[in-house]
């Protein structure tokens, strides 16, 4: 069976879940040994990335990307963050072509509340 990076990352996450400062180095050593045995060391980078993603998702902290036409005020950012559980890490992007409103990207999903989208929708409504 071919194991994916994600499977390794999940395994590592579950192992480290109950680890204390004392047991952690042992666990990590054992995990590295496992990777070496399975010839998977060159995939370590990918596994670490997956691990970060997975542990973030587990703890409820999510990375969200907020696109807006203009720079957002702190209050708005806080409000958006609160919508997604409060722990979200926000990266901001300015895209004037949105005209107004915001576009929020979380993982595979985009919530589009921009003015551009509304106008596009109006256009399709009017042409059909």
């Amino acid at each position, binding site marked *: 069976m071919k194991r994916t990076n*994600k499977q390794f990352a999940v395994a590592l996450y579950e192992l480290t879940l109950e680890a204390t400062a004392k047991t952690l180095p042992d666990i990590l050593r054992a995990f590295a040994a496992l990777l070496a045995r399975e010839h998977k060391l060159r995939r370590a980078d990918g596994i670490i990335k997956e691990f970060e993603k997975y542990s973030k998702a587990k703890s409820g902290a999510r990375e969200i990307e907020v696109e807006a036409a203009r720079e957002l005020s702190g209050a708005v950012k806080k409000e958006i963050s609160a919508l997604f559980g409060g722990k979200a890490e926000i990266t901001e992007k300015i895209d004037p072509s949105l005209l107004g409103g915001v576009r929020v990207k979380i993982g*595979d999903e*985009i*919530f*589009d509340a921009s003015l551009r989208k509304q106008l596009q*929708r*109006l256009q399709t409504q*009017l042409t059909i």
Partner: protein
Amino acid sequence: MHTNAIVEELKKNITHFKREIEKEEVGAVLEVGDGIARISGLSKCQSSEMLEFPASAKAAAGKPGEVVYGVALNLEEETVGCVLLGEYEHIKQGDLVKRTGRVLSVPVGEGLVGRVVNPLGQAIDGGKEIKSDKFYPIEKIAPGVMSRERVSQPVQTGIKAIDAMIPIGRGQRELIIGDRQTGKTAVAIDAIINQKGKDMLCVYVAIGQKESKVARIVAKLEETGAMDYTIVVVAGASMPASLSYIAPYAGVAMAEYFMDQGKDVLCVYDDLSKQAWAYREISLLLRRPPGREAYPGDVFYLHSRLLERACRRNKEAGGGSITALPIIETQASDVTAYIPTNVISITDGQIFLETDLFYRGIRPALNVGISVSRVGGDAQIKPMKKVAGKLKLAMAQFRELEAFAQFASDLDPETKKQIDRGQRITELLKQPQYRPYAVEDQVAGIYAVNNGFFDDVAVQDVLETEQKFLTYLNKTKRVLLDKIAAKEWDDKIEKELKEACEGFKR
């Protein structure tokens, strides 16, 4: 739209503004090339779902470039493999890909009749845009056992050899197979031309054909008035393989709409070998394991699921039928190759076209010995059944004796007679292209030859004499021909026909 309406619409939109947040599911392009793309993300993507790629930058004056769609074929753990249905030069790694939530579907409806469209249902004949509010998914499970009925009505192809000896019924799947340049397309086109006024709609699907050939066919269909009831679906040789792959499914989806209205449809797939090549290309690029002749493992299912959708539905299920005429091109007459054997086993019979017959001047170059129709016999009209039975027997005897034809002078009179009859029948079954025969004319001609009325005519003059005979009949005995066309046949009609033949001889 009126200005006021726009203002109203705008107002309405503005009042609803806050509630309309659109949720999109997206992924990013990992790699793209050769008409396929791999995409990360899209965790909820369905199989054969349409995916929206960024629009091409090649914008026509003032208009945004056209959105390129893809179809998800491989759903893997982390990625989605998809084929692109259009230009992909502008797609870059990292581009956003949106889910549409729709499985690949094509517009259907009356608006398509008389049009030339691509497999996505967009007009490519330069006419106005096709607007349809009805969409059918291109992949659909074929009707089940309970909604089907036996094939009982004929499809008149207008080709004497086929209607007499290899009859095709409505709802049948009859394969047309042969080498290149043996007249496969000609048979199918003649069949379409002959459907005029027969309450049939036709769908001609050109797969991987030269655009010049398609243009010629469309021109011919227009000239003969056949475009009035025909949809031409074109996946040209220059279009991506993905379009060749979906073209037959798109064609049959358009046909299914009309079947659902209780109509009879004739579907020609020209040709399925090219579709199999396109599918092989896609499968190999998606890294599916190759099998025999490098085709993927599911190439049988590729054709069987398409041809199963040809059917005749019973009254309870709404009636209607789809008759399929798939075409397969063989290489050097090799019918034992992978795709020909597959499709032969799927269909209800096959029409073999051969190169040497073609060059001997027997056109259509049908090999009547090995061509069969497994269900069409039930669909033949009674008069044709009566006269064609004799014809088949005479042809079978002739084939056995044909080798001796050169020593005609040394043979006994009985054998000589059989050979003479066979040669005249072979001559009678010749037919120029685009000249379909009405069924009553076919019956009369075959009856005359069968009963020895042409025995004193030189073999090379048979066709000419037949023409004269048919003109004579149409002038003097139209009532009799109408009766035959109305499927009537008894001793009285036969006697009348015999008298007509005698009258013509005098």
